[in-house]
């Protein structure tokens, strides 16, 4: 075999392997088996199996649920599937000061454990941002400003990767 033919064979082989690998990653079920976080409803559906394991829980901060105690730096809030009312939610307790972007309806991911008392103890609280970047409007009322923000910025608060596409 000439070196050129050999090299072409290498190229073909490598492209096939790469294509197959990419196809597997893109269309396989990796997203279902290996999720970065669970939504509240998914975690609740696990029942007792969810207790005491370290879990990442992701969703949206339920409007009006934030309770912050500055003296003891304890934070309580509910993580919901989305910002609509009446969606499944989980009470989260955290002992750290949240990032400054933390607010009602923002996407959050918390790492910690869930127990039988129905409280999720977080030891790592992360806030995620949407893909929107806007200048503040002049003379805008901060409370109205909040209503113009997109809800549930967590990219796939519900559903798996396949559905999110």
């Amino acid at each position, binding site marked *: 075999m000439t*070196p*050129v033919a050999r*090299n*072409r064979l*290498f*190229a073909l*082989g*490598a*492209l096939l*392997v*790469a*294509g197959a*690998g*990419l196809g597997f*990653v*893109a269309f396989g079920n*990796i*997203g279902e088996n290996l*999720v*970065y*976080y669970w939504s509240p409803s998914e975690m609740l559906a696990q029942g007792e199996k969810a207790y005491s394991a370290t879990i990442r829980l*992701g969703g949206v901060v339920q409007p009006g649920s934030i309770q912050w105690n500055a003296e003891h730096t304890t934070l309580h809030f509910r993580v919901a599937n989305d910002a609509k009312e009446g969606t499944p939610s989980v009470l989260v307790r955290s002992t750290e000061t*949240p*990032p*400054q*972007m933390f607010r009602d309806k923002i996407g959050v*991911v918390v790492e910690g454990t869930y127990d039988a008392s129905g409280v999720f103890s977080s030891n*790592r*609280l*992360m*806030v*995620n*941002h*949407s*893909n*929107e*970047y*806007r*200048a*503040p*409007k002049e003379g805008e009322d901060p409370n109205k*400003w909040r209503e113009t*923000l997109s809800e549930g*910025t*967590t*990219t*796939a608060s519900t559903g*798996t*990767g*396949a559905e*999110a*596409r």
Partner: protein
Amino acid sequence: MNKLIKWGLPVVGLGVLAAGWWLGLAWAPPDREMGDVQRIMYVHVPLQWMAMLAMFLNFVAAVAYLVRSNASWKLDSTAESAAEVGLVLGALGMVTGAIWGRPTWGVYWSWDPRLTSEAIMLVTYTGYLVLRRFVEDPDKRATWSAVVAILGAINLPIVWFSVRWWRSLHQVQSSPKTVDPQMVLCLRVSAIGLLLLTIAMLMHRYRIALAERRAEVALPEALPGTGGAASVHDTPKVA
């Protein structure tokens, strides 16, 4: 290389990048949520774009090297330069992204799909460059590294689409619809400036690689003490 391009391109690139950054830091409005921290966008996003571009060039050059019947050292040198420049830009993109993550997400790092695939990508291209250092025969080096380059390139679409395919902490791509026009302008100017600088870096790195290849090929057998990884830098000076 044309003197005008050799020196003009970096100077123009620097000028455009400086203009874009100045606009981004002093003229553009702050973001309503992130405030001034959002200005990191004008350095982080162009770095990541150009890193992806350089790595894609590496892939194209690698395929061309293997497929073409008259493949020359120029393609191999292009692949080498693109991988190195891409790795530098990608590493900087990751560092600036981590710094951006601290005030916004609250953490420098989390193993979400985007960050994980990005980390794997950087490790892949580091491995690619290390492999090149370890193979002494230029022919074998070019062939083997081209295969690694093609296999490593599957990470490029994975990194890009990771935020759409899976749940992640990193947000999905922005578009001009989701970004205010002033910010878009700053981002575009900065990206064009960095693009010009990237092309300049690629060209200079390419010349180094090509000179090394020619010096290697000119030597029938590696002379004692000149072959091997450590002395690749010195080859042009020795010759």
